[in-house]
């Protein structure tokens, strides 16, 4: 059953990714990106990461993608006639060959390593959110604070960049 869900989420997310890159109209690209994000969040559920699923749906699909669509509507772009780079075929061939080779290597390689301290049974007992919270506000508190300061800087930077600059005459009057 898990394999069926995995196949569905994997195939749809790859297809949506290709559509995001290949579609002509930017709004259609945004909607394909939405499908990609929702199906990637489905993969997170299969991996026992329910908190990350919620964050993906709320932050990515709810906030970031709406920001993209707002900017697309604000700019009111016309669809370009030539929307690919003129020599894109030279990129396409090596990319397909390279990814096929990498997939072959990845499917054959035996992944292993030292096991950590959070086996699936222990995580499922209290829920993923509690496990993430305990870890985040214990070992990763400094990184959490740094990300908070980073987001504050990003907000201020976005406001400063997007503000309409005042002309010199207005500044003299003020």
């Amino acid at each position, binding site marked *: 059953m898990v394999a069926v869900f995995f196949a569905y989420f994997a195939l749809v997310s790859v297809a949506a990714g290709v559509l995001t890159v290949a579609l002509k109209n930017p709004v259609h690209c945004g909607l394909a990106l939405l499908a990609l994000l929702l199906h990637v969040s489905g993969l997170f559920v299969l991996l026992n990461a329910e908190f990350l699923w919620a*964050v993906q749906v709320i932050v990515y699909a709810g906030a970031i993608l709406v920001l993209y669509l707002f900017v697309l509507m604000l700019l009111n772009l016309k669809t370009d006639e030539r929307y690919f780079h003129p020599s894109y075929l030279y990129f396409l061939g090596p990319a397909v060959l390279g990814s096929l080779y990498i997939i072959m290597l990845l499917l054959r390689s035996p992944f292993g390593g030292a096991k950590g301290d959070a086996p699936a049974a222990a995580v499922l007992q209290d829920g993923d959110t509690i496990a993430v919270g305990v870890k985040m506000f214990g070992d990763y508190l400094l990184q959490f604070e740094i990300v908070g300061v980073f987001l504050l800087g990003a907000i201020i930077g976005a406001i400063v960049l997007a503000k309409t600059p005042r002309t010199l005459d207005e500044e003299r009057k003020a």
Partner: protein
Amino acid sequence: MVPLSAYVAVSAVLFMTGLLGVLIRRNFIIVLMAVEIMLNAANINLVAFSHHLESMAGQLVALFIIAIAAGEAAVGLAIIIVVFRGKISTNVDEMNLLKW
């Protein structure tokens, strides 16, 4: 039980798609969307390894990546608005003001 390599393969395909999008698309907004695809591919990888190696660290790094992607989208879209106001174009080939 889905093997770890299947998740890693999906992530590799998505990453290649995003990289290709950054290279061949000319609309700046679509280029930023392709960067989001690449960040999502990295997230799949991190969460899959976190699940299979039974450690929470991967999920936490994925959370930090989502936060940084939010900041990147905000600043990137603000830059697009600034460029669009000045040149009325979002074509990356026409943004060559800083070119040497």
